[in-house]
C-alpha cells in the first residue's frame, strides 16, 4: 500500500508541477461556473436577473388608454423601465446624449440595450372605442436563451385590458339581443357599451383573480431560490464536467509514459502491476476530488446550499470520480497515441457533460433526450445533486444514483484492467 501511495504522490507532484494546472483546476472552472450560474439563473428563474430591464416604447397614440396600458406593463415587474417615459436625470434609460426616436429604438434593440420594444399604433384608443380589433407590436431579442418574461407580462396586461373591452362588446350584444328596441340610436348603444367597459375596468382594477406564485423553499429556508436555481445548477454541473477534464488527461499520460518507457521501467522495479496502476489511478482520483472540492467551496461562497446530508453528498462525489477514473482506464486501453487521446477525451468531456445535464437541467429537454442522457454518468450524478440541493434528499434518495455510478465503475474497471498493457 505504501508503494502505491508513493507512486500516487509522485504523480501528484508531477501534475501540480505544471503551472497551468491552477488555471485548469481553479480559475477556469470557477469563472465558468460563475458565468453559467448567472446565465442559467436568468434562464431558469423565468424573470429578469438584472435589476432593471429597459423596454422601449413608441406610443403613437398618446391617449389615456395607451397610458393606462403602459402603467399596467410597468407594474407587472418592479424592474421594468419604460423608455423614454421613465427617463431620469441619471439617464436610467441609457440614452446618453441621443434623443429618442424610432430609429434609435431600433438600434437599441439590435444592440440589446433595450430588451424589447412595444409600439402602440396611432388611433389605438379611437379604434378600441369604435369596437375595432387592434394589434400592438411587440419586438424583442428573446430566444431560447432569454425566455419571454417581458412578453409574458405584456400578454397578461393585454388580456386584462382586453377583458374590459370584451365586456363592452359582449355586454352590448347581450343588451341588444334582449331588447332590440332598447337602443334607439347608435349613441345610446355606444353609451351603454362605454358604461359596461367602465364598470368592467373597475372590477378588473380590483384584480378579480390573481395567481399566487409560491416557489417551494430550497433545502435552506434562508436561501434565495434564484441563487440556488442558477448556481445550484452550474456549480455541480461545471464541477462534474471539470472533474472529467481533470482526470481524462491520464489517458494521454499513460500513453506517453508507455512511449517514453517510464511505465516499462516501473514494471522492472519490485512493484506489482496492480500497485503501479493503482498508484497512478489514485493520483488522478485525488485530482478529481480536489476539482470537486475547489468548485463546491466556491459555490459555498456564492451561497449555494448542498442539502442536509453531507454523507450522501460525499458519496455522490466519490462514486462519480471513481466512475470517471475507471472510464479513463478503459479508454486508455483503446487508444494508441496521445493525439488520439486528447481528441477523444475532449470529445467525451464536451458531449457527456451537456448530454447528462451539466450545462442545463434535464427538465427542459425532451423526454427522449432525458433517456439518452442517462448513458452519461453525469446524468446520474446530477440527478443525485438535484435531489440533495433542491428536494432535501438524503442518502436513501440518492442511493440509486450512487449504485448506478458504482456499477458503471465496476464495468469500466473490469474492462480496463483486463485489457491494460504495460508495454
Amino acid at each position, binding site marked *: 500500500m505504501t508503494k502505491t501511495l508513493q507512486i500516487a504522490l509522485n504523480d501528484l507532484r508531477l501534475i501540480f508541477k505544471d503551472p497551468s494546472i491552477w488555471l485548469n483546476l481553479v480559475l477556469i472552472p470557477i469563472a*465558468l461556473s460563475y458565468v453559467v450560474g448567472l446565465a442559467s439563473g436568468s434562464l431558469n428563474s423565468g424573470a429578469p436577473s438584472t435589476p432593471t430591464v429597459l423596454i422601449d416604447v413608441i406610443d403613437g397614440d398618446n391617449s389615456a388608454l395607451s397610458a393606462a396600458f403602459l402603467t399596467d406593463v410597468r407594474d407587472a415587474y418592479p424592474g421594468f423601465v419604460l423608455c423614454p417615459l421613465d427617463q431620469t436625470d441619471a439617464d436610467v434609460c441609457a440614452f446618453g446624449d441621443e434623443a429618442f426616436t424610432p430609429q434609435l429604438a431600433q438600434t437599441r434593440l439590435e444592440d440589446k440595450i433595450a430588451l424589447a420594444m412595444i409600439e402602440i399604433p396611432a388611433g389605438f384608443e379611437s379604434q378600441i372605442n369604435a369596437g375595432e380589433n387592434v394589434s400592438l407590436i411587440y419586438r424583442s431579442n428573446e430566444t431560447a436563451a432569454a425566455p419571454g418574461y417581458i412578453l409574458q407580462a405584456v400578454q397578461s396586461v393585454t388580456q386584462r385590458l382586453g377583458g374590459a373591452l370584451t365586456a363592452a362588446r359582449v355586454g352590448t350584444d347581450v343588451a341588444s339581443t334582449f331588447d332590440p328596441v332598447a337602443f334607439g340610436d347608435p349613441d345610446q348603444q355606444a353609451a351603454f357599451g362605454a358604461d359596461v367597459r367602465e364598470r368592467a375596468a373597475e372590477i378588473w382594477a380590483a384584480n378579480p383573480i390573481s395567481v399566487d406564485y409560491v416557489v417551494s423553499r430550497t433545502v435552506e429556508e434562508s436561501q434565495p431560490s434564484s441563487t440556488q436555481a442558477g448556481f445550484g445548477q452550474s456549480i455541480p454541473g461545471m464541477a462534474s464536467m471539470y472533474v472529467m477534464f481533470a482526470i481524462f488527461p491520464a489517458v494521454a499520460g499513460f500513453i506517453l509514459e508507455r512511449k517514453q518507457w517510464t511505465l516499462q521501467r516501473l514494471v522492472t522495479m519490485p512493484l506489482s502491476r496492480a500497485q503501479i496502476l493503482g498508484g497512478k489511478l489514485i493520483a488522478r482520483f485525488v485530482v478529481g476530488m480536489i476539482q470537486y472540492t475547489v468548485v463546491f467551496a466556491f459555490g459555498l461562497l456564492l451561497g449555494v446550499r448542498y442539502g442536509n446530508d453531507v454523507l450522501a453528498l460525499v458519496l455522490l462525489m466519490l462514486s462519480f470520480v471513481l466512475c470517471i477514473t475507471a472510464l479513463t482506464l478503459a479508454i486508455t486501453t483503446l487508444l494508441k497515441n496521445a493525439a488520439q487521446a486528447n481528441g477523444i477525451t475532449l470529445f467525451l468531456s464536451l458531449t457527456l457533460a451537456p448530454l447528462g445535464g451539466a450545462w442545463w437541467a434535464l427538465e427542459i429537454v425532451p423526454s427522449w433526450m432525458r433517456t439518452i442522457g442517462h448513458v452519461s454518468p453525469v446524468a446520474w450524478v446530477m440527478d443525485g445533486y438535484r435531489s440533495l440541493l433542491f428536494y432535501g434528499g438524503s442518502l436513501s434518495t440518492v442511493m440509486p444514483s450512487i449504485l448506478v455510478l458504482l456499477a458503471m465503475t465496476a464495468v469500466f474497471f473490469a474492462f480496463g484492467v483486463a485489457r491494460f498493457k504495460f508495454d
Partner: protein
Amino acid sequence: MTKILTIAWKELYTTYTDRSLLLIMIVTPLALATIIGSAFSGFFGNGGDLPIRDIDVAIVNLDQGTETLNNGDVFVSVLVPPADASPETLLDNPLYELTNAVELSDADAARAAVDEGTYPAAIIIPADFSEKVSYGQNDPIQPVAIEVYASSASPVSASVIRTLAESIANQIATGNVTVQATIDAMIARAQTDPAFGLRFLSASNNDAFNPDFTPAFDPANNPLTIEQQTVTGESAITFNPLVVFGSAQAVFFMMFTALGGANSLLEERRDGTFQRQIVTPTPRIVLLLGKFLGVFLNCVIQVAFLCLALTVVGSLLEGRINFIWGNNLFLVALVVITVALASSGIGTIVAALVKTPEQGNIIGGVISLAFGVLGGAFFSVDGIPGIREFRVITPNYWGVDAFTKLAQGDQNIGLNLLVMVGIGVVFFALGVIIFNRRLNV
C-alpha cells in the same frame, strides 16, 4: 506566391489527414451542436415557442362551486384529458400535449409532491373560487387567488405552468366580469329609463332574460392582440437553436484551430524545423504568410463544413430539407470568410506575442474559452450586466450575430463584416510584423 500557396497547402494537408485533429475540429462541435439542437428541439417547427412538452402538473380543485357552475372545473377540463378521450380530442387541445396534468384531491399532498420533485408545479384552486368569482344578485365578484406552487428546482416548467394558470384565470375573469358589468349597467339603465326598467323587470321575473355570455369566455373575442415581430420588424419566425448554438460552437472551435495553428509555428521554431526553412532561399515573410494563410484556410473550411453539416442535422431534426442559414449564400460565405479572418488574425497576434508554445497553449486556451463564453457557445450572456458589454470584443459575437441575422432573413450585417475584417486585418498584419521581428534564428 507559389511558395506561399505551397506552404499553405502543406498546412491544410497535415491538418486534414490527422484524424485526431478532425475529431476536435469537426466531430466534437457537430456533436455538441446536435446535442444542443436536440435539447431545444421544441423550438423547431411551426408554433414551437415552448422548449418543453409534457410538463407534469398536479391540479387540486377544491372549488365547491355555486348552485349552477364550478369555475374550478374549467382548469381541470382544459388541462386533464378525459379518461376516455379519443385521439382526435387529444389532438384538438394542444394543452394536453403541453402538460401531463393529474387531478389530486389534497392540496398538502400536492405541495409535498412538488417538494419531492414529482411535479414541477401544482395548481391549487380554493374552495370559494366560484363563490367569489361568480356574479349573483347582491353578490358581486370578490377578489380571489389561485395558487401555483412551484418547485425551485424546475423553474422553467413552473414558469410555463404559471403563465398557463394566469391565462386560464384571466379568461374566467373576463367572462365573469362581463356578466357583472353588463347586468350592473342594465340595472343602472333601468333606474334612469323607466320604460326599459319595466321591460327588464318583467323579463327577469318571467325568466325571459336568458343572456348568452358564452362569447365572453372565448379568448378569440379579445379585441386587443399582440403582433410579435423580430428585431427588424418582420413577423416573428421560429427560433432555430441550431443556428445560434451551432454557429457559436463552430466559431468557438474554429478559434481553437486558429490559435493552435498559429501556435504550431512556435513549435516548429522550438523544434528547429522553421529554422531549416529559413536557410532555404525563401524570404521569411513568405514563410510566415504561407503558414498563416494555411491557418486561415483551415478555419474557413472548418466553419464552412460545420455550416453544411449543421444544415443536415437541422433538416433531419425538422424532418424536411431546410438550409438553416437563410437564403443569401453569398453573405453566408462572406461571414464564414470574415469570421475566419478575424479568428486567424487573433491566432497570429497571440503567436507573435508569446514566447513558447506552452505559453501559447495556455493563453490560447484561455482566450478561446473566454471568447466562447462571451460569444454564447454555452449560454447567452445577453442578460448578464458587467459581462455582456464585453461581447463586442470577440469575433465570436459578431460572427454568431451575423449568422443569426442571415438565418432570420435580415441582411443588415455590414457592421459585423466590417468589424471582423478590421480585427482580422489589423491583428494579422501586426502579428506577422511582430513575429518577423522577433524571429530568433
